């Protein structure tokens, strides 16, 4: 891509960021931010760690299972199975997150385990879907060229298919993780911990400051995760197939 275009897209990103931070700053001005930190600072620090642990564990598991699943479902030999598999995942995605939490609690009890399972289930679909879309989007003639040159199916997957699908796959991961971090507060409802503790308790006690002490870090974390993944994608996707470079 031309340097001018790169600069422009960078400029747009910066402007959006500045706008977002501005809104946060305005919100914070309405609040007694230092008072909030004094009262809830310890809780926030502790809960952010818990929150991130939940997100990392469930998100990591979702990537570790979603990408291989997407690879399997994108193979020509399982074309029939892949339709059924995608249907299953799509139906799964229509179940509200709260319902999934409730279901996983009825099965796994309360605590971290059911929370991680539910978050994993919510995060899985975008990753699988984008992995399949990315791999199917690889031009058939590239695959033919690779086969014709004598690559084994595994070599073809690693050297040609995955690198060319990586941008789309990572876009799925980015969406999935942002959703994941934003959904973690619900884990509190089944005893999973996380910033949901401040949010829901704040709501119950009609204590807006407490609620915001949970909500603001959650929003911040979602933005940071989204940005980090896009940064990783920027450097991880080879320059030849990276529309941003």
């Amino acid at each position: 891509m031309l340097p001018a275009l790169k600069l422009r897209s960078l400029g747009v990103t910066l402007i959006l960021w500045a706008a977002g931070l501005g809104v946060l700053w305005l919100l914070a001005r309405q609040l007694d931010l230092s008072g909030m930190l004094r009262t809830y600072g310890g809780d926030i620090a502790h809960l952010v760690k818990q929150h991130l642990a939940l997100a990392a564990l469930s998100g990591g598991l979702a990537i570790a299972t979603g990408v291989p699943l997407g690879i399997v479902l994108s193979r020509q030999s399982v074309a029939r199975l892949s339709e059924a598999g995608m249907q299953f995942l799509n139906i799964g995605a229509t179940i509200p997150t709260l319902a999934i939490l409730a279901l996983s609690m009825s099965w796994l009890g309360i605590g971290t385990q059911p929370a991680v399972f539910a978050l994993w289930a919510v995060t899985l679909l975008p990753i699988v879907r984008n992995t399949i879309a990315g791999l199917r989007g690889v031009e058939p003639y590239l695959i033919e060229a690779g086969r014709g040159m004598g690559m084994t199916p595994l070599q073809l997957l690693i050297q040609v298919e995955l690198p060319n699908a990586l941008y789309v796959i990572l876009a799925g991961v980015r969406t999935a993780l942002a959703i994941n971090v934003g959904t973690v507060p619900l884990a509190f409802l089944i005893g999973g911990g996380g910033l949901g503790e401040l949010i829901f308790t704040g709501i119950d006690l009609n204590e807006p400051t407490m609620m915001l002490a949970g909500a603001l870090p959650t929003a911040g974390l979602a933005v940071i995760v989204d940005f980090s993944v896009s940064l990783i994608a920027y450097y991880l996707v080879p320059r030849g197939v990276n529309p941003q470079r």
Partner: protein
Amino acid sequence: MIKLEQLTKVFNTPTRQVVAADRINMEVATGEICVLLGPSGCGKTTTLKMVNRIVTPTSGKVLIDGQDTTDMPTVELRRKIGYVIQQVGLFPNMTIEENVCVVPRLLGWDMTRARKRAAELLEMMALDPTTFLKRYPKELSGGQQQRVGVARALAADPPVMLMDEPFGAIDPINRATIQDEFLKLQKQLQKTILFVSHDIDEAVKMGSKIAIFSAGKLEQFDTPDNVLAHPAQPFIADFVGADRTLKRLGLIRVAEAMAAGAPSASADTDIARAKAMMREYGAGYLVVTSPGGKPEGFIHSGSDESSGGLCRDRCMRIAACVPATADLRAAVSKMFENNVEWLACVDEEGRYVGTLDQRTVTHLLGMTYAAQLKA
């Protein structure tokens, strides 16, 4: 050498069986380019792809250098065959260097050797290695990409190459250039090549042999000149075009057709002597050359010799010269362009080497038909 024996491919569709290649037999000698030619859907690409088993043959054999490839592991077989496709198929995620190194790496070469080979090949393809090795395919023009595609196929120096309409996606001007470059390269490399095309002009230019396909059958397998001069069937005659005899002109070099021994005079030659030379040789004209051997003009048999004098006094301008390395198509075109019946032929330095006249050309093209009539 590539040999196809009774090679057959039948595709099973839900409604019927389609015979894409029907008992194809042919043999391409080492160092030859065999062009598989025909309309789309005729089976030429299927036949090509059965050689590296992108398409699995239903029956029949492919032999490479006498060795039956049927039992060879597919992956191993493919690494020994250079493969160029129409869409080029450079991997966009890899640099040019990485692309060219793919097969050497698959074969387990160490990186230094593979890199060295890549640089060498780009050099061969008239692409500057320092500029191009680290670039990505999207940063190259179509013609440059196709050159890299050929370089990649040549990387492990395979004895056999399969080229599926390799220059089909390039604009006509660049195509002609890249064809010429490739032919020049092939002269040194002497690969055995199967080359799919649907363009008769490309086939005539590139092929040492042409295989014409129709509806899955190999209909004619012959030299380009024979395909053009003696199409085996009316459909082939149609396919190669009503101007097929003119296309044959492209197959003959001026040097092969010209009268190399035609005498010449210098500006200082006496006109009477020049006319005697002309009569002796039996031509109606005589080229007058400069001291450096370049054609300067000519005198013709109607020149008046009674008043004596030297050639320079009667010398007429030569309308056009043609390089001896050009093909007859260019030469005849020049004749028509200048409204003349003969041309002076020159070598690379522009020195006179002989003459080419229209009668010779006509006779040369007609010879093959006369032989047929006699037989």
